[in-house]
């Protein structure tokens, strides 16, 4: 090893803390350049629908996911637009699901920046459709939303276990 260089801002401090227990701990850095990710800059959220939502026939409808289970960086809007807009750029695994009360062709889709980008499993009876996909988010303007489609007008059940929206950063 030739040297360790730590560069910081003009104020504040950088602390490398070691555990206060006996033993040897090793952190190995890869031979690559990148940003070290810690829990504080790896956003994650999970929310679910808390009220039954009417679904019009054959119309992609934004699912009103309004109850948060957790939202580590407060990037999920659960009151107005029901969208996740992470302010940390990187790759995110986004997952959504909905339970449809009517028997028809039903599915959920993930929209990115207002357009459908990934469509989930289709169900033709009164069951849950799920979708999960990987997205790159630019950390400023990109956002994702959950939409649902019911071939025949029905409703989406308000159950925490079946109608939900989640995302987690997996790498920068």
């Amino acid at each position, binding site marked *: 090893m030739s040297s360790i260089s730590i560069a910081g801002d003009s104020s504040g401090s950088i602390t490398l803390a070691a555990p206060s227990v006996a033993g040897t701990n090793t952190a190995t850095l890869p031979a690559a350049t990148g940003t070290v990710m810690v829990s504080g800059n790896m956003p994650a959220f999970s929310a679910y629908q808390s009220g039954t939502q009417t679904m019009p*026939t054959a119309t992609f409808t934004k699912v009103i996911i309004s109850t948060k289970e957790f939202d580590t960086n407060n990037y999920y809007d659960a009151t107005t637009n029901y969208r996740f807009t992470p302010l940390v750029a990187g790759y995110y695994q986004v997952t959504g699901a909905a339970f449809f009360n009517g028997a028809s062709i039903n599915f959920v889709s993930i929209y990115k920046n207002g357009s459908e980008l990934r469509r989930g499993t289709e169900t033709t009876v009164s069951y849950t459709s799920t979708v999960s996909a990987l997205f790159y988010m630019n950390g400023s303007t990109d956002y994702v939303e959950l939409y649902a489609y019911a*071939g025949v007008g029905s409703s989406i059940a308000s159950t925490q276990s079946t109608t939900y929206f989640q995302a987690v950063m997996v790498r920068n």
Partner: protein
Amino acid sequence: MSLYEKIKTIYPNLEDKDFMTVIILQNDSNGAGDYIKAWNHPTLVKPTQEQLDAIK
């Protein structure tokens, strides 16, 4: 009458899959109601607002 029903009234031969592929109706759950997000049908022209409004 819903937007879907109005379009089906104008074009009764449209199939279910058309509304999942070439014709996208959307509702953003913001109180503005249903609207035509995209109309890419290869032969049928997008109905005008006047045509839709005329159907009660």
